């Protein structure tokens, strides 16, 4: 234990002291043990000055030095606590801001994905509409064409010469009309031309 070791240290030093005293006596050649500390004559003065200096020191320490030290220590303590408090507040604030930021980020992300999805939907819808319209047109045209072909075929099948000749007749009429105008400079009515053509055709087939 600490106290024990200190005591033994003291004891050792003490023993060495008592060992030294006879030597000291021999060296100085004094008669009798004269340890100056045991000189009672000096006690009054020492006690007096001890009391005086200790009391003076007590008042200097207690009234002058200690208030100053404790003031500085308290000030520092307060400052440290203040700073810690401030740091705590700022930390909380930063945390709240961070949460807010994350929330904002999340909602922005959601909005962005919503917008993208909407746009995509729109594009798909619009594409489908256009395609349907085009398909409709194409199928209409096809139907139209088919109808016409069918009609033409029916005409060919049922109408015989009259209908079959229509194209040839009109071409022949045009050609005859043009030729007559070029040759003799007379406009001939289409009926006359038809008559003439049919006559010619009849003669030849006979």
């Amino acid at each position, binding site marked *: 234990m600490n106290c024990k070791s200190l005591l033994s240290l003291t004891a050792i030093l003490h023993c*060495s002291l008592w060992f030294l005293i006879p030597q000291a006596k021999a060296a100085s050649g004094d008669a009798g043990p004269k340890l100056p500390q045991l000189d009672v004559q000096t006690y009054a003065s020492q006690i007096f000055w001890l009391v005086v200096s200790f009391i003076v020191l007590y008042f200097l320490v207690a009234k002058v030095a*200690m208030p100053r030290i404790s003031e500085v220590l308290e000030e520092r303590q307060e400052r440290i606590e203040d700073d810690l408090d401030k740091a705590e507040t700022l930390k909380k604030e930063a945390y709240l801001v961070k949460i807010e930021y994350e929330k904002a980020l999340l909602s922005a992300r959601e909005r962005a994905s919503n917008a993208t999805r909407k746009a995509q939907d729109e594009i798909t819808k619009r594409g489908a509409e256009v395609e349907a319209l085009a398909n409709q047109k194409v199928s209409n045209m096809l139907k139209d064409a088919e109808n016409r072909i069918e009609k033409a075929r029916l005409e060919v099948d049922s109408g015989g010469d009259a209908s079959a000749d229509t194209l040839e007749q009109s071409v022949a009429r045009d050609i005859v009309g043009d030729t007559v105008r070029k040759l003799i400079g007379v406009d001939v009515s289409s009926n006359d031309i038809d008559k003439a053509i049919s006559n010619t055709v009849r003669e030849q087939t006979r």
Partner: protein
Amino acid sequence: MASPVEQFKLKSLVPLELGGVDLSFTTSSLWMTVTVAAVTAFLTLSMRGGRLVPGRWQSMAEMSYEFIANMIRENVGAEGRKYFPFIFTLFMFILVGNLVGMIPFAYTFTSQIIVTFVMAATIFVGVTVIGLIRHGLHFFSLFVPSGTPLILAPLLIPIEIISYFVRPVSLSVRLFANMMAGHTMMKVFGGFTVLLGVLGVAPIILLVALTGFEIMVAVLQAYVFTVLTCLYLNDAIHLH
């Protein structure tokens, strides 16, 4: 060659007599005054700036303050707060008194048995009075360790009483003997150095080591004296 204990002899510097009592200002008084001045200067000058971030000196002053504050908190508790100025003064007085004694040609007033004894006796009386005021007659239960079988009481109570009354003696002799022995030993080795001539290098080396050791003892004994004061105070306040 002068006796190794010759150094403890007091020289009267300013003769003073009051009512037939010799109250001369001696070397011992001079170094007490130096101690008072040094402690005051140390504790006030170093705190003059009072900076938030202490420098070296301010740090030392604050450390000694907190050292004693912690010592009281640990050994006495909250009730010891009142006695803080006294114990702090006591510690600084003994510590600086021991340390200035290490300056060559200085006088170590703590090597005077009467000085240490007056301090120890004052503490002893003070502590006893504090105990009596706080606990009245119940204070005497201090002499009966708790859990003592009744049959052992006649044996233990005298032992406790003796150990209690030996406190001022042991407290004062511990400090006085340590300081005196250290300085005597240094003087002896110093004498050897002179006697041995060239060979005196050996004791000088020892003397250097011894000086370091003595500085340690000076601090240690101031600490021991203060800690024991705290423990006695704790006994008086809390009765074991």
